[in-house]
């Protein structure tokens, strides 16, 4: 008896997540294959195109990394908000505002001066605007009592309206304004990269730093502990001399700043201009990543890589198989739903056993 009680936690600590992951992947595989058979195509062929389209060559893999970076920044940011119990659905809009801030700075940089200075300022402006947009949602929650899901969504739509207005109004291309975005920036104002690289190694480095710093801040620092305390029991927190509202606002601002940084990288590193769909839906996708990771940090980089590969791989589908590229979103959603199912069933079993 004594042996089994000591062994079980250790065994289940490694085996349970493994079994769960296999179960989740199995359900997703069956669901997706069934779906593809229903629309009359070969699942194997579709999976092959998804694989080839994402890991088939270095150039394709670098595109995957270009999706991975903003996804990591958004997901890491979301973790801070989730720790305090906030659903920061507004990441999408915060990313857009970051892109707007960065574009505004880089436009100033067109008149000359050191490109490094302007890129640095663009980064700061992107993070600042993202954080302020998040603060607005947080403040409406704390002061106005409106659930952050609704303010966040509302502000997302407003942000998209703002981008469209800028592209068709004050920042329109010389000649005619169009959905293709603003005038591209000259090469010296692009986010620095290495010769022959389609993804900036510096941006990858930035994402890795954010992962490590977040790991330390959330899991090892006093600050992370306080965030968790606010999320677990906001009423007990004032007893320890902490202000829950202040922590909520700080958490959502970090969330917004990281999303803003992602938006800045989209402008300066990927598109080199402001386009209407500058966020590419990575904010919402980040929410799915964090949910699939069960709100833990360590699985996030791997899940984000998988999701980024799906996004890039699915670009091939319309051309090769006349399938809509939204298949990637269906698979990503199916992953999260089967994870919720598996985690839920496990909890039910534990409750029955207890």
């Amino acid at each position: 008896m004594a042996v089994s009680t000591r062994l079980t936690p250790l065994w289940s600590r490694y085996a349970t997540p493994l079994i769960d992951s296999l179960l989740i992947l199995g359900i997703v595989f069956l669901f997706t294959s069934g779906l593809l058979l229903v629309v009359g195509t070969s699942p194997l062929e579709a999976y092959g195109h998804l694989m080839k389209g994402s890991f088939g060559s270095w150039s394709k893999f670098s595109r995957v990394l270009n999706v991975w970076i903003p996804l990591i920044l958004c997901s890491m940011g979301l973790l801070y908000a989730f720790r305090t119990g906030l659903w920061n659905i507004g990441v999408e809009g915060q990313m857009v505002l970051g892109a707007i801030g960065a574009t505004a700075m880089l436009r100033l940089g067109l008149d000359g001066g050191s490109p490094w200075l302007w890129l640095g300022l663009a980064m700061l402006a992107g993070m600042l605007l993202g954080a302020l947009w998040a603060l607005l949602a947080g403040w409406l929650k704390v002061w106005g009592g409106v659930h952050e899901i609704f303010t966040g969504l509302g502000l997302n739509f407003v942000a998209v309206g703002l981008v469209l207005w800028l592209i068709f109004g004050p920042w329109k291309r010389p000649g005619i304004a169009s959905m293709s975005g603003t005038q591209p920036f000259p090469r010296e104002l692009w986010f620095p990269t290495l010769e022959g690289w389609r993804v900036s190694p510096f941006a990858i480095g930035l994402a890795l730093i954010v992962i490590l710093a977040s790991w330390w801040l959330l899991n090892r620092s006093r600050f992370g502990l306080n965030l968790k305390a606010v999320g677990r029991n906001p009423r007990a927190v004032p007893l320890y001399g902490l202000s829950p509202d202040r922590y909520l606002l700080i958490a959502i601002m970090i969330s917004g700043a990281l999303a803003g940084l992602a938006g800045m990288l989209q402008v300066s590193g990927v598109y080199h201009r402001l386009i209407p769909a500058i966020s590419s839906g990575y904010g919402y996708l980040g929410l799915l990543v964090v949910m699939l990771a069960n709100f833990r940090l360590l699985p996030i980089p791997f899940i984000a890589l998988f999701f980024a590969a799906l996004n890039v791989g699915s670009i091939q589908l319309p051309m090769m198989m006349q399938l809509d590229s939204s298949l990637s979103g269906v698979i990503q959603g199916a992953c999260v739903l089967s994870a919720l199912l598996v985690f839920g069933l496990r909890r039910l079993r534990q409750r029955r056993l207890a």
Partner: protein
Amino acid sequence: MNDLPLSVLLASVLATAAPLIIAALGETITEKAGVINLSLDGSMLLTAMVGFLVAYETHSFVLAFTAAAAIGALIAAIVGIFGIYLGQLQVAVGFALTLMCKDLAYFLGNPYSRLQGPQMVPMKIPLLGDIPFIGPVLFQQPLVVYFSLLLIAAVWWYLYHSVRGLELRAVGENPEAAYTRGIDPRRKQLLYTLIGGALVGIAGAAYSLDIKPGWGRPQGIEGLGWIALAIVIFGGWHPIKVALGALLFAFLQVFGITLQSYWPGIPAQVFQVAPFPLMILALVLVNLLQRDGVQRWLERRPGLALLLGKLRGAPPRALGRSFHPD
């Protein structure tokens, strides 16, 4: 441009509001029972596609609306079972479903996009439809408009004047107490989640077959599911106020397009997103009215208090919380 008679504008407000009323009332029923179904935005898009597809293939509107309602109920069932029986966060399940259903709609509906499909025609009610002004506004409408108006009365009566409605509200306010009274809160919650989802499905099909006929990418109803969710809060979970909220939103949409021609200097994008900040402001207002300080301030202004008092409404106390019979 403004040579459109007022009756035409008002009629189009009613038509624009109809699917929103249906969806928001469906969500009101679900939330009154204590479950929050956040999947509306994706669910409406998927059922719009299903409705169009079935009508295109079978030429039967009855089958199309039935299929859309069934799919709506199926999506709601996932929220219900995961949330109520598996104890998962209802918000998480709903959000994942929203994103997935949206992509599923575009994936499965791809072969049907931009096809000329069947479309419902307005149904003129004999005699009543001939009344000047009122006739064209109220009685020369598509079927879904009549359905939405009847639904308001039906939901109101069911919630506040029937025994089952009382049980529904009891489950949403205090499932533990309802349980000791011999009601199974989880079964009730699942039932009303399914009914709410079916109504959302009907709303989705109402768009693709009637209000914004056709199917394609983008469909033009993206975001309206979120508006419907916000309208439920705005309406304080009361079916009549919820319906008024939907009408107000439709009014803003229809007259926003008209206003645009008055101020050509203001870009179109501002009018397109204007309802969203207005909705946030309305939610702030509704919430501030619950505050003690604001209430005391209002006590000294009876006229204003009477007016704003109508806006107040508290959420069902067990909203979003999973009941467990232990």
